[in-house]
C-alpha cells in the first residue's frame, strides 16, 4: 500500500509569534513557519495506514525550499519513507485551485500511483479547506471528507470510513469507497491500533524513522514546474482565479456598554461583581 499525505507550512499563530506592521497588518515575513497544525490528523491517518496495512508513506508539500524543515517534522510524525517538495517560483502565491492543479499533477507524476491521499481539514493561514477536495476532483478519485475513523482493506481494494455530518442533529456516516481514494481528515480523527502487533510495529518504525529524519534531504525529491510539465499560466499566481485585493484590520467595535472598572484587590468593588454572579450560584 502506498499513501501520500499533503501538508503545508503556515505562519505560527501562537501568541507572541505574530507580528503586525503599524497599520495593523500581519507581517508574514516576520512570522515563523511551522507545519499546519490542522494537518496532524491527516498525518495520524497516514501513520495508521502504514502501521496497520504496511507499505510506504510519502509526504508531499508545495512551497519554498525552506519547507524542508516542515517536511522533516512531517517525516518524523508519520514515519514517512520519502518526501516530495513541489518548489518553484512559478508556483508561488497560488490560490487553492492553482495549488490543486499543481499537487494533483505531482501525485500523478509519482512512479507508482498511490492508493490513498490524505489531507487535513484546513490550513491555519488561509482556512479555506478547498485544496484537498479540489485536488481529489482533479484526480477524479472518490472523495471522503470529515473522516474521524478509517479502515482499509488492501485485499478488496476498498476503504471504510466514519465521517462527521453536521445538521439539525449531527450524524456519523459510515461510507465505503474503492481505492484509490482521497481522504480529508476531521480534526477529531482518532487512529486505532487494536492489536498488539500494531503497537510493536509502531515502535520499530519509530526507531527506523528517527535515523531517516536526520538525513531527510537524502529522501526528498524536489520537482519544479518543468519536471511536472506544468504550464506556468496554470499554476502559481498566474494560474490563480482569485487574488487578495485588500486586507483591513478588523475594525474596533464601538463601545456599547459602559464598563464599571473593578480592581480585584478592592473588596468592595469585587463584592459588586460577586453580587451580580451569585444569583446564578449553586453548582456542586
Amino acid at each position, binding site marked *: 500500500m502506498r499513501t501520500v499525505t499533503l501538508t503545508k507550512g503556515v505562519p505560527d499563530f501562537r501568541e507572541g509569534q505574530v507580528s503586525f506592521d503599524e497599520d495593523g497588518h500581519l507581517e508574514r515575513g516576520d512570522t515563523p513557519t511551522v507545519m499546519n497544525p490542522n494537518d496532524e490528523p491527516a498525518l495520524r491517518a497516514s501513520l495508521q495506514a502504514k502501521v496497520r496495512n504496511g507499505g510506504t508513506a510519502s509526504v508531499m508539500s508545495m512551497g519554498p525550499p525552506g519547507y524542508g524543515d516542515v517536511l522533516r517534522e512531517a517525516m518524523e510524525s508519520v514515519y514517512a519513507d520519502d518526501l516530495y517538495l513541489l518548489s518553484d517560483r512559478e508556483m508561488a502565491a497560488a490560490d487553492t485551485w492553482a495549488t490543486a492543479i499543481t499537487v494533483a499533477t505531482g501525485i500523478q507524476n509519482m512512479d507508482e500511483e498511490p492508493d490513498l491521499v490524505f489531507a487535513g481539514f484546513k490550513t*491555519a493561514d488561509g*482556512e479555506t479547506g478547498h485544496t484537498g477536495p479540489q485536488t481529489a476532483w482533479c484526480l477524479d478519485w472518490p472523495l471522503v471528507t470529515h473522516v474521524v475513523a478509517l479502515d482499509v482493506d488492501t485485499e478488496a481494494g476498498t476503504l471504510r470510513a466514519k465521517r462527521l455530518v453536521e445538521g439539525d*442533529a449531527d450524524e456519523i456516516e459510515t461510507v465505503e469507497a474503492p481505492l484509490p481514494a482521497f481522504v480529508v481528515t476531521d480534526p477529531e480523527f482518532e487512529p486505532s491500533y487494536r492489536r498488539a502487533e500494531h503497537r510493536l510495529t509502531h515502535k520499530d518504525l519509530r526507531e527506523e524513522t528517527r535515523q531517516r529524519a536526520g538525513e531527510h534531504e537524502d529522501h526528498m525529491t524536489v520537482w519544479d514546474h518543468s519536471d511536472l510539465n506544468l*504550464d506556468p499560466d496554470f499554476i502559481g499566481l498566474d494560474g490563480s482565479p*482569485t487574488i487578495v485585493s485588500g486586507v483591513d*484590520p*478588523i475594525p474596533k467595535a464601538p463601545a456599547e456598554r459602559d*464598563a464599571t472598572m473593578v480592581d480585584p484587590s478592592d473588596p468592595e468593588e469585587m463584592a459588586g461583581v460577586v453580587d451580580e454572579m451569585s444569583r446564578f450560584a449553586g453548582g456542586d
Partner: protein
Amino acid sequence: MALDPGEYDISELGPAIQDVEDVDELEDILEAEKAGENRVGAKQLVESRIEKFREDGEDGGDGDFDPTEMSPADIANALQDVDSVDRLKEIRDMEEAAGSRDNVLRLIDKRVDSIQGSDEETVVDRAPPEERHPDLDHPTADKQYVEDLEDGTYRDMWVYCETTDGELLDVSREMLGKARRLMDGYNDEYGRDERVVAVLLGDGVADLTDEVVELGADVVVYQDDPELARFRHKPYTELFAGMARAGGALGRQSRPRNDEAGETGLALDEEPDAGDSSWRDYDEPRYVLFPATDDGRDLSALVQGELDSGLASDCSGLYIEDTVISNPAKTGREGDKREFEAVLHMKRPDFSGFEYSTILCLDNPTREFHPQGASVIPGSFEAPDPDPAREGEAYEYDFALPEDWFRVDVTEHDELDSGVDLTGHDVVVGLGRGIGDDPTAGMELGLELADAFEDAALGITRGIVTSSYDFEGHVEQYAREERQIGETGQVVEPKLYVAAGISGAIQHKVGVDEADTIVAVNTDPDADIRDFSDYYVEGDLFEVLPALVDALESGELDEAALATGGGDDD
C-alpha cells in the same frame, strides 16, 4: 437602522460602511456626521460612497478627495476619475506628507504615466505558451479540469439553497435576501435585468420552490430525487455544474472532460430530456453563492473546480463594484492596469480573526474565471421576510444519475449525541488566550468557575481553537472547535457571560452581544472587550477566578486572599 458615525474613528468608518449600499441610508449617516462631529474626512468617506451608488450620479470626477483617509483599493478606483496631472501631483503630495504608502504612490505615478503616456490602450498580446516555454510540451491546457471558454457570456447570481429534513437552512434564506439586494443594486447600476437563480438538490425539495421565490429568487432550478436524500460530493457537484453550464457549440468544445475517454460533463441544454433550458442564454453564471456549512464548503470548492473558476470561503461581507487592478497576473504585464466591471468583492475574516481580507475572482488574460464564487458564513446577513406576492419561475430537472457517481457508498448513518450546545444556559464562562501562561491550569479554573454556577457552560475563543497549546489530556476535550463562541462558532445569549482572558476581537463579540450582563477579567485595562463589558475586573484570571469560585461557593468574599493575590508581587 443607519449606523452612528460618531461612534467610529475615521479609520474605522471606511470598513464599517463598506457593506452599506443604500444611498438613503448613506445620506442619513452623512447627516448624522454633519450634526455630530462634522469631520471632513468622515464626510468625504461617506460622500464618496454615496457617489458610487447614486443612480445617474453627476460625474464627480474632479479628484476632490484626500488619499490619506482612504484604502489603496479605494484610491485606485478614485484615481480613475482624475485626468488632471496637476491634481494628481497634489494628491501625491498629500500622500507623501501623511502616510507615504509605497503602494499608493505607485498607483498615483501609474495614473500620471497613463495620462502622459500614449493614449492607445495596451492590448494584451501574449505569445502562445509554446513560444514562451519551449521546454514544455504543454499538456496543462488539455487537462480534464481546465476549461477553455473564451469570450463567454456570464449572467445572473446563482444561490445554492441547502436544506435539511426538507426545510431550508437559515443561511439559505439569508443568502437569498443578500443576493436579491445585490442584484437589485447591480441591475440599477448597470441598467440590466439579471436574475437571482436558486438551486435546490435533494429529496422533497420540490415543495420549497414557492418559498424560495418568496425570499427573492426569480428562477428556481431543482432536481428532486430520493437518491439525493443525503449530500454526496460527486452527484451534487455534477448536477450543480450541469445546471450552471450551457451546452451548445460554444459549451461543447470548452467543457472539461470528465474522464480520459474525453467525455464531457453535463450541460443543461444538451440534454433536452432532462428539462427545459429555454429560460437562459448564457454560458455560465456571473456569480454563485454557497453556504459555508460543511457540505456547502465542499460543494463550493468542487463546483468551482469543475467550472474552472475560483472562490472565497467563509465570507461575511459581499458587495459589487468596478475595480481597477494592477496585479500583473490579471493585467498580463507589469505596470499595466485593467478595469474590471461589477466585481463581487468578498470579505472574509482571516488569520484567526485578526484581519478581514477582500478576495476577488477575476479573469486572467488567457483564462476566464467565471462564475465568481463565495461561501457565506451563516448569520452574516439578515433573512428577508417572505413576500407572497413575488413571482418566479421554477424548472424541474431530471438528469440521469449514473452509478459511477455513487462510488462512495453510504452504508450507515447514526445520529450523534448532539455535540456541545452552549446555548440555553443561564451562565457561560468564556476563556481566551489569557490562559496562555498555563493553558491547562487556566482551563481547569474556567471549569471550576462554571461548576460553581447552577447552570453554566464553558466556551472558548477562536484563538484557543487555533492555538498550539499543549493541554493535558483531561482538559483537552474542552479546547475543541465545538466549544468556540463567536462569528464562526456558537452564538450564546446567557443572562451572565464571564469573559476571562479574552481580548474581544469583533468576531468574538458577535457571539456574546446578546448576553444580559458581561463580566470581563483581563490584565490589560484597554483590551477591546472593555467596550462591551458591564464589569471589567482588571486583574490576572489566575488570581481572580479562584477568588470568584471561593466567593460563589462559600457565599462570601475572602478579602485577605484578594488583597494579597491582586496586589504587586512581593
